[in-house]
């Protein structure tokens, strides 16, 4: 199954993911790693993409987060 891994650095937004998917529309599994200081801001950043997704497996990770607990 085709998998795509995308890393979002500080200041990069969901547009980078959308652009990558436009160039590889057949991707079925998407792993997104987002630079973040906490475990919720990546979801805030990607919310529109995640809410609208129905067809692909998506996994979101936070890079460099500080544990809030």
């Amino acid at each position, binding site marked *: *199954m085709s998998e795509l891994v995308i890393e979002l650095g500080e200041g990069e937004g969901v547009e980078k993911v959308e652009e990558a998917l436009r160039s590889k529309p057949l991707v*079925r*599994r998407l792993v997104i790693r987002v630079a973040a200081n*906490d*475990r*919720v801001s*990546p*979801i*805030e950043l990607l*919310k529109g993409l*995640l*809410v*609208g*997704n*129905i*067809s*692909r*497996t*998506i*996994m*979101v*990770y*936070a890079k460099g987060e500080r544990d*809030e*607990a």
Partner: protein
Amino acid sequence: MKLDIVITSDRTMITNHHGREFLGFVATGPPIGMPERLWMWICAPKPKVDKWGKPVEAPYGLRKIEAALVNAGFNAAIIDPDHLGPYLKHAKVLMVGHHDYFAMASPSIEWWLMTGSEPVNRRSFLRLMRRPEIREAKKRGLKIIAGGPAAWQWLWNLEYWREFGIDTVVDGEAEKVVAELAAKALNGEELPLYVYVGPDDVPSLEEIPEIRGASVNGLVEIMRGCPRGCKFCPVTLRPLRYYPLDKIERELRVNASAGLDRCILHSEDVLMYGARGLEPNPDALLKLHALVKKYFKTLAWSHVTLAEVKYAQEKYKLITRLTEIVYDEHQQYLGVQIGLETGSVNLARKIMPAKAVPYPIEMWPQVVEDAMAVLHEHRIVPALTLILGLPEETEGDLVQTAELLDRLKNYRCLIVPMFFVPLGVLRDRGWFLKEHLKEGHVEIMRKCLWHSLRWAEDIVSSFYLKGARNAPLRWALKLFIAYVKKKAKEVEKWLEETGWEGVKRAETESAALQPLARVCRA
């Protein structure tokens, strides 16, 4: 006993609803006309637990997760929410699941929008997550993983995601991914924040584990997926998988050996079990029902479709043949939930073009009426659901729905209008909120209310809660019905005097509604 992984939910989920699954719907509303404690007792009494605090009956979805973990060698179990304390002193992972964490699904959302008061399922879940034993365990490093059919709601409730310290949200069929997540959590490895399990990654039949403890009211799945492709429904996105009879029987045995005498067959359309395309398979269905009655006194269906009811009866006399198997000295009626969705052919063509198959969609209102006649004749009591506020809905569509409701007057059923919730293919569409309600919607809701009140007393007294054993519940529900009738008359009078637009102008949004309105507009 110590556990590495504790699986739980709040009281509205960890309950058997007095053995009456339909009472679970009461948990989708706010407490109206009575104290919350009494409301909770009606819909969510404390269940029987064993000496370790494990509920005898637990939600089927949580049972699947428990089975997947135990089969993979993890020390995991479902624990009643009132017995979490001792386990959370040692557990490393807490898994929670829910049908409706934040009361954003139907019908919770419309009770909330219409009354301005938070439904008890949401209140109960928030209370659970704010318990000191969970907070303290979280401070010690407990990992919290949330999933279940309402996992999507976390995307709309990031403040709670942050407040409760949720580590991972899993949306979709989780049996294939849960063991890997558990291993990562226990080993201190990096966990994903969010996992959406797409259609290519759902478990195959062989990968779906069998439950190891009894499910609430003996619910067992007989298939997953649905071929009808309705745009508002997330189930239709998943591939179709029929459980073979021997797999179903092993789960029936688990429930029977726990002492349960009732069973609910779960499917988006029970009459589709073993179907070839959309052609029913009478042999498979007759065998399935005979098998269930071998183990249990009573049986219920979770869902069927109206087209399948009409077709199966017209072609195979199948409703008659199935009820001949089901009805005996223990059971004289059958309960089921059915999606009516709309009475408009135009709207049906746009959002659910295959809903009437094998009949043309132009026949949808006739299919509904004919199927309801079959159900009424066979003492099958449906709770019908309508969707208000579907994308592209017009005033004309609402008029057609209202006309169809008039034609259903004499059929024994409850009819529940639900506001459109963006799910399935329509997941990215806007929410339907109270401010979008038009006169046509109000008229439909009025018709549904009076239809349901008319039939509710009959259903409660003659079918659902017969006998001396059910007298307290019957009394409480009759009192509630009388209260709703009184309130409905007051609201009708107000509407007659002011009109819906006048009511909207006069009304200021209540404080309790503001969190919901903010979330849905975000």
